[in-house]
């Protein structure tokens, strides 16, 4: 009997303890997570009175730049006393889901990443107006709401096209500057294909169009050139048509011809079943001349000991010359309007945009292109350097693909590109499939 009593007493203690711990954690989220975003938004009266203990939190969606950002945050704390907590997540769509969880749990970061129009529509009531910040006039790629308010801080510019291996092109006697229309590409591909053994390549292009994991490369990035290549002053005609469920059939056919050219000269296995790593490895080891990716591959290049010169050529699918690559801000940082230290967030962003240290962090340490015109810090990575030239010359087209509805590229366009890559349909069939897929957007 004694034992029984002892055991039951023990169990009760354990249960009570568990209950206390369980409920207790509810409280500690307010104090421990360090971020004064707090549970409730109405209650701003109990603001941190102890100055110098201000802490703000940034939810960064680009895991590659986590370390440099943290280093900058540390330096920033030394200088201003404001602690900036960097929280980095990787993996595309899941960031939005995580963020929704944070909002529901009252654990909203003071600054968070938004990836385009879909995110904007979800978060528009939660974003602080940044129109009066000093950096706004210094950039062309800030996220501007339909009402004309600046809500997103453009921390970088990224660009892509057909990234080439300069050494191999030189060997074949092709000047990348001439690659500005489909006929130039056709001639170049034929020449390179005939010199396969001399150049030591297995295929001309490294592309991946598998619908499960590589849809973004074709259905977002490559399709982006249908939407924007050759448009004047960021004209949004084709994306507006797409949203209404319409396509420009002639332009789509022309685009399909270019796509077929790329697919025909691609490494077949990588094209239909390859991953990003396969695609990159093929090009970085010098087995193909072109790769359809952008300057984000810079940080991966040292692991392949890449020594050849490189640059980005336009995804020029038309007969007439279109001398520009697709470059834009990939995502933006917004300030949460329910946070308690909005001014501190704004100051932090301003310091990143306007100070020498901030520019060094974004450009040199993170290996990105600055989106601010006054920045003088030069990038060091090879593709970033090349991209910078395009941006400075003003030869860029916007990323209209980012304005497509959420999940549309992944679920509706991705399979079409894969079907085309596998050879299930011809050019005419591809255009029909695209037309049918886009027609589902008709309201």
């Amino acid at each position, binding site marked *: 009997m004694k034992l029984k009593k002892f055991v039951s007493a023990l169990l009760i203690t354990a249960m009570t303890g568990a209950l206390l711990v369980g409920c207790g954690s509810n*409280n500690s989220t*307010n*104090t421990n997570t360090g971020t004064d975003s707090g549970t409730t938004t109405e209650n701003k009266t109990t603001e941190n009175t102890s100055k110098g203990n201000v802490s703000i939190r940034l939810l960064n969606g680009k895991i590659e730049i986590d370390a440099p950002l943290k280093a900058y945050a540390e330096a920033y704390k030394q200088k201003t006393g404001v602690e900036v907590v960097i929280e980095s997540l990787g993996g595309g769509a899941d960031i939005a889901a995580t963020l929704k969880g944070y909002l529901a749990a009252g654990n909203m970061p003071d600054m968070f990443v938004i990836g385009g129009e879909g995110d904007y529509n979800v978060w528009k009531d939660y974003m602080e107006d940044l129109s009066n910040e000093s950096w706004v006039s210094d950039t062309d790629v800030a996220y501007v709401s339909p009402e004309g308010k600046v809500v997103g801080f453009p921390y970088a510019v990224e660009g892509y096209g057909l990234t080439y291996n300069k050494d191999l092109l030189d060997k074949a006697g092709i000047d990348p500057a001439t690659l500005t229309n489909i006929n130039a590409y056709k001639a170049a591909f034929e020449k390179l294909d005939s010199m396969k053994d001399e150049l030591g390549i297995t295929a001309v292009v490294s592309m991946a169009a598998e*619908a499960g994991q590589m849809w973004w490369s074709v259905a977002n990035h490559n399709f982006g050139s249908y939407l924007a290549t050759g448009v004047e002053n960021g004209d949004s005609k084709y994306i507006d048509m797409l949203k209404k469920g319409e396509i420009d059939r002639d332009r789509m056919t022309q685009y399909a011809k270019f796509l077929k050219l790329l697919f025909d000269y691609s490494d*077949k*296995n990588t094209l239909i079943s390859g991953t990003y790593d396969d695609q990159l490895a093929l090009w970085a080891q010098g087995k193909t001349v072109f790769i359809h990716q952008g300057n984000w591959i810079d940080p991966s290049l040292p692991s392949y000991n890449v020594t050849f010169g490189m640059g980005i050529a336009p995804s020029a699918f038309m007969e007439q010359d279109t001398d520009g690559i697709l470059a834009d801000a990939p995502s933006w940082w917004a300030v949460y309007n329910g946070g308690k230290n909005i001014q501190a967030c704004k100051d932090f962003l301003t310091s990143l945009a306007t100070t020498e240290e901030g520019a060094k962090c974004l450009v040199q340490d993170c290996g990105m292109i600055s989106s601010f015109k006054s920045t003088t810090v030069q990038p060091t990575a090879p593709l970033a350097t090349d991209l910078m030239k395009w941006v400075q010359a003003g030869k860029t087209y916007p990323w209209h693909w980012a304005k497509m509805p*959420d999940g549309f590229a992944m679920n509706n366009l991705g*399979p079409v590109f*894969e079907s085309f890559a596998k050879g299930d349909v011809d050019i005419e069939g591809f255009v029909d499939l695209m037309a049918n897929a886009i027609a589902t957007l008709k309201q």
Partner: protein
Amino acid sequence: MDVKVKKVLSLAAIILGIAGVILALIMDFSGSENPLRGAILVIGGLMVLAGFYFLPSKNHKKIINVLFLFPLLLAFTVTVIIPFIFGVFYSLTDWNGIKFENFVGLQNYITMFTSNDYMYSVVITFIFSAINIVLVNVIAFSLALLCTSKIKGKNYYRAAFFVPNLIGGIVLGYVWQFIFNKVLTVLIPGSVSMLTDPNLALLAIIIVSSWQYSGYIMMIYVTGLQGVPKDVLEASAVDGADRLTTLFRIKMPLIANTFTICIFLTLINSFKQFDLNFAITNGAPSRILNGVSILSTELLALNIYKTAISKNQYALGQTKAVVFFIVLAIISLTQVAISKKREVEM
């Protein structure tokens, strides 16, 4: 202690406790940041429990039963019942993961049943499940027979067959994706990956799923087979039953309850297949159906996930999940009811 005093004291504890809980909840909902509110909530809750525990009553035993069930009931309510009710509720709105603006009635249900991608997912999920259930159970039962026979090293086999189940589905998925894409294409020169053909890709998921899950189901069959009484087996042997007759007439009817549980587990597992599907194909390859190119191996769970997370249509995803639950509940309950009839009481 006097019974009356005890009664008054415990009633007071209950009332005070309830008041404390309500006070704490009011504080929380009104946005107070008083650090004591958590403590008030917990102490209030404990006082209510203690009050009921010490309350002198004719139904003391019943109260104790409920009290001891309380932690479980609370956990179940908070993690299952309440989210489920919320889920059904959200499926009637235009919820976007943060808030909802309108009630849309059954609009989500109509959208769902008229969308081709969902109906396609339903069809292939049924195909996948049917094949997978049969395959897993046949393989698992055969392995179980092997592992209960007099073969040498059967303990080693048992462990070996069970190991795949210990590895997480995502990891397994990526490993097998590599095998299908890189190893098999090299072993069979000139071939393209299985994962580029819609039918073969579904088969690939079935192969991996069977491989992963058979070992686990095998263990349950092994337990069942070991539970068959020796005297019955001996009696049948004396009566001249050969091996096959013993298997079909004696062993299988006697472990019918094992079949019930194994088929139930594989049924649920097949319908809810997500991680392998996500890692091996993530919906690819494409298939052209009625002039539309669609993802051909998107099983229901993946379809729901993508609807909510990547298409950002949380209410529609929730609707699909509610229907998924109902369908799964009906199928599995039917299966259990049918299988139960076949069981033999010893």
